[in-house]
C-alpha cells in the first residue's frame, strides 16, 4: 500500500507530545480512522487537521471524548445545514429573479 500520505501514529504523538492512547480513543469513538500497514499504525494526512482540533478541545477546554463525539457530530450537522442553506438561497434567488 502507498504510505506517502500516511503519518505513523508514533511520530505524530511524539511531535504533538500526546499519548498514543489519545489517538486510540479517538479511533474507538470512530472520530478518526487508523490504517494498519505491516503492523505499523498510521493516520492519513487529511485527518491531521481533525486530530489537532480534537487535541485543542480535549487538552485546552477539558472536553472529554463523549463531548468530542457530540461536538464532531454537531459540527458535521452544522456543515450540512450550511450547505443546504446555500443551495436554498441560490434556489430562492432564482425564483426572486423570475
Amino acid at each position, binding site marked *: 500500500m502507498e504510505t506517502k500520505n500516511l503519518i505513523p501514529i508514533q511520530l505524530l504523538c511524539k*511531535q*504533538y*507530545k500526546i499519548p498514543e492512547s489519545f489517538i486510540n480513543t479517538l479511533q474507538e469513538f470512530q472520530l478518526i480512522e487508523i490504517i494498519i500497514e505491516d503492523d505499523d499504525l498510521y493516520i492519513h494526512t487529511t485527518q*491531521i*487537521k481533525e486530530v*489537532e*482540533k480534537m487535541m*485543542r*478541545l480535549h*487538552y*485546552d*477546554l*477539558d*472536553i472529554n471524548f463523549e463531548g468530542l463525539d457530540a*461536538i464532531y457530530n454537531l*459540527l458535521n450537522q*452544522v456543515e450540512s445545514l450550511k450547505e443546504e442553506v*446555500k443551495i436554498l*438561497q*441560490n*434556489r430562492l*434567488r*432564482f425564483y426572486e*429573479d*423570475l
Partner: protein
Amino acid sequence: MAFIDYYKILGILKKATEADIKKAYRKLARKYHPDLNPNDKVAEKRFKEINEANEVLSNPENRKKYDQYGEHWQHAEEYEKAKQQQRHQKSSQESYGKYSQEDFSDFFNNMFGGTSSSARDRKVKFRGQDFNAELQLDLKDVYTTHKRTLTVNNKNIRITIPAGVENGQIIKIKGHGGHGVNGGPNGDLYIQFSIINHSKFKRDKDNLHLTVDLDLYKALLGGEIAIDTFTGKVKLNIKPETQNGSRVKLKGKGFPKYKKDGEFGDLLITYQIKIPEKLSNQEKALIKELQKLR
C-alpha cells in the same frame, strides 16, 4: 490604547481564586472557541479577549503586576526595566502554544512584552490559522476556467477559478492561511464566491433559463427565430400552435458543470407570447372573422 479589564472579560471578581479563573476561562472558551464557531468573526474576537485575560490572570506574576498597576499600567514600564533583560532572554525560548503574538492586544503586548510565561509546557507544532475571504465575480466570469491574482495579507496569490463555481461555494487554497506555530504547517485560505448575475439568463446549478418573447403569428403559424445563448445566437424552429409558457430545452447550451471539463447543463427556454396592441379596425374585423370560425 485603552485599559482592558480582564476580570470583567472573564466575568469574575478581583478576589477570584486561581480555580475560579480557570473555571471562568474554560466556560467562556468552550462557548467562543474558534473550533466550535467556524467562520464566526465575533466569536473569534471574543475568544482572543478571553484568552488574553486568561494569559494574564492565570499567571500569578502577571496577575500581580496587572493588579498592582491596573489602569496606571503605563507606569509599569519603569518597574519592569530592571527585569527586562532577564525576561527577554527567557521569553524568546518559550512556547506560545497555538496563539501568535498578533492574537494579543496592544495593551497586553505593551504591559507584558508579549505572551506570558504561561503554564503551557507542551511545545507543540500547530497549523496556522485558516483565513477566509470573499471574492465577487460576475456570472460571465465563471463561465470559463480562468486564473486570477488575489492579494491576501499583502501577498499576491494566483488562483485558478474553475468554470461552473456556484454562488456561495467555498474553495480551499492550501497553505495560504496564517503561519504555523513552532514550525507547524501554514493554515489554509478559504475563498467564498459571491456571484452576481447581470445577464438575462437565470442560473439554476448547471442549467440556464431564458424567457423569450414570441409574436402571436409566429406562435400560431410556426417559423424560425434567433435566440441568445451564453456563447452566441442560435436559430430555433417554432412549432405551429406554440402555447404561451411552453418550454423547450437546448441540450448542452447551459452552464459548464463544475470540474467536469467539456460538460454543460441545458438552456431552458420559456416562450412568452406577445399579444398585439393598438389593433387597427381592419385587424379587429379580421380577428372577429376568425372568432366566428371557432
